[in-house]
């Protein structure tokens, strides 16, 4: 049908992926066994790409709270809080979030994506300026489309470039809101937060940080990068999600700026979406209550991250710039990236395949996210399989002679005679992350 013709480039990429193996967007798990294992195509598979950082998706207390809320309050709220009113749990969770972050107010959203849409798209309006990092998540770019503010990009993690942009705006009326992320979701690199804040303060701007990947993961009590860097008092706005370390779904905006409550009446993603169901609120509250004391889980998570990063680095893979619960293998060759992802899947390890332009600098990424629930044996097996397949594909050096390496690569190629060269991926992203 003609209305779908504009998606032909996406269809082409999808078909190419299917022709050489599994399609990342069409995977269907037969069974979820635990936070780190599932059954896929009849095979037990290690989950190494689900952002389940603290491994709380099967936490008994969270499940019990969710079941109790389902029985007591039903399956859903059937509307937005503006139209249908709030449940007690919504207000309690907002109070607990504000208390957890040591900030004045919190607003719940129905997903993390919508929290960014609702916060960024509303806080900066006509006549204002949004200054966003070049590697921002899609939710931030989409929020910019929702806002009437002028949008200015600065180079990724570059406070000097940000300062130049703010300097050129000096004296112009309008609020300047800088938007950054604590951990960037593709490579796992962190923001140079202190330097960013110094620039922000110098030019009288405000700062919103998305702590989606750092909640529960960084800081002594799990409040994220702001806590770790000791700069919480310098942050105007924080957004985050319950869909990673908290193990459920939902998002939030937190602030110390007086008067945040009015955002509820101006934020369309808050006003025109059904609110979180009581069972989700109950599981989120239970999981959030565990975060401050989850020191052992954080230690295990970072031990696992270090083990995976070091193992892959030692094998010769090109990785993101720092150890992080997100570990990404960077590749130039789309065929090899797809082959590595498929090879791991066939061997029983699920990761994420991320393709340009959703990736920094046009890399093809095999993205892993680590959980505190992973055993060191699971991480070791993932490293071993990755190394073996990476060698077969010629992605990393083989410990044998160079000639043997070339021969192994040829063997690997012969295994999949049907593989056709992937064309350069165009502007629409195919990303599983």
């Amino acid at each position, binding site marked *: 049908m003609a209305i779908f013709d504009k998606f032909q480039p996406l269809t082409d990429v999808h078909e190419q992926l299917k022709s050489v193996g599994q399609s990342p967007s069409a995977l269907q798990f037969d069974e979820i066994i635990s936070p780190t294992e599932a059954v896929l195509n009849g095979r037990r598979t290690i989950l190494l790409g689900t952002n389940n950082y603290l491994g709380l998706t099967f936490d008994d207390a969270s499940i019990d709270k969710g079941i109790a809320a389902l029985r007591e309050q039903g399956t859903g709220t059937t509307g937005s809080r503006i139209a249908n009113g709030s449940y007690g749990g919504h207000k309690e969770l907002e109070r607990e979030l504000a208390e957890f972050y040591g900030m004045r107010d919190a607003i719940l959203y129905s997903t993390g994506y919508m929290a960014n849409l609702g916060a960024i798209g509303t806080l900066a309006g006509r006549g204002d300026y949004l200054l966003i990092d*070049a590697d921002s998540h899609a939710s931030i770019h989409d929020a*910019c489309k929702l806002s009437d503010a002028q*949008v*200015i990009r600065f180079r990724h993690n570059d406070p000097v*470039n940000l300062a130049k942009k703010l300097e*050129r705006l000096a004296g112009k009326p309008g609020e300047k809101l800088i938007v950054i992320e604590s951990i960037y979701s593709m490579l796992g690199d962190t923001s140079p937060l202190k330097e960013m804040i110094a620039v922000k303060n110098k030019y009288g701007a405000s700062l919103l940080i998305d702590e989606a990947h750092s909640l529960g993961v960084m800081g002594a009590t799990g409040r994220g990068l702001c806590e770790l860097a000791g700069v919480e008092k310098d942050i105007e706005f924080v957004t985050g999600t319950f869909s990673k370390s908290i193990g459920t779904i939902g998002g939030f905006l937190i602030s110390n700026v007086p008067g945040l409550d009015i955002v509820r009446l101006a934020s369309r993603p808050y006003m025109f979406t059904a609110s979180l169901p009581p069972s989700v609120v109950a599981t989120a509250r239970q999981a959030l209550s565990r975060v401050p004391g989850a020191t052992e889980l954080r230690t295990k998570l970072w031990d696992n991250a270090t083990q995976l990063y070091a193992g892959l680095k030692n094998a010769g893979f090109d990785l993101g710039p720092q150890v992080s619960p997100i570990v990404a293998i960077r590749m130039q060759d789309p065929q090899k990236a797809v082959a590595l992802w498929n090879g791991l899947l066939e061997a029983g390890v699920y990761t994420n395949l991320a393709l340009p*332009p959703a990736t920094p600098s046009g890399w093809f990424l095999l993205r892993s996210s680590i959980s505190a629930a992973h055993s060191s044996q699971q991480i070791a097996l993932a490293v071993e399989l990755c190394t073996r397949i990476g060698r077969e594909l010629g992605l990393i050096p083989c410990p044998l002679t160079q000639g043997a390496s070339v021969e192994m690569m040829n063997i690997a190629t012969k295994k999949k005679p049907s593989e056709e060269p992937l064309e350069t991926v*165009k502007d629409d992203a195919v990303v599983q992350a």
Partner: protein
Amino acid sequence: MWVAGENAMTETTGKACDMLNDPIYLEIVSQLRPHADKSVNITPNAIILSDLGMDSLAIMDFVFDLEDALDLTIPEHRISEVKSISDLVDVVYKLQKEA
């Protein structure tokens, strides 16, 4: 506005000016070269996305380089107005006038 064509003139600056000798055009071409497909001929009418072998990431990097070279900021909505190099020349002149 720029008129398409290699001998296009500008009204923005109020001066008749051959685009091929225009300093902004020349700076844009200079900043484009590292990002564009080496085999393509860069002309004022070249469509940046389709004619120069550049994807959205390459365009973003090029814009950063151009901003540094010209010491100005090109907001997102202005970038979305641009198709050809001559469009970009026009946007730069407008931004310089507004600064």
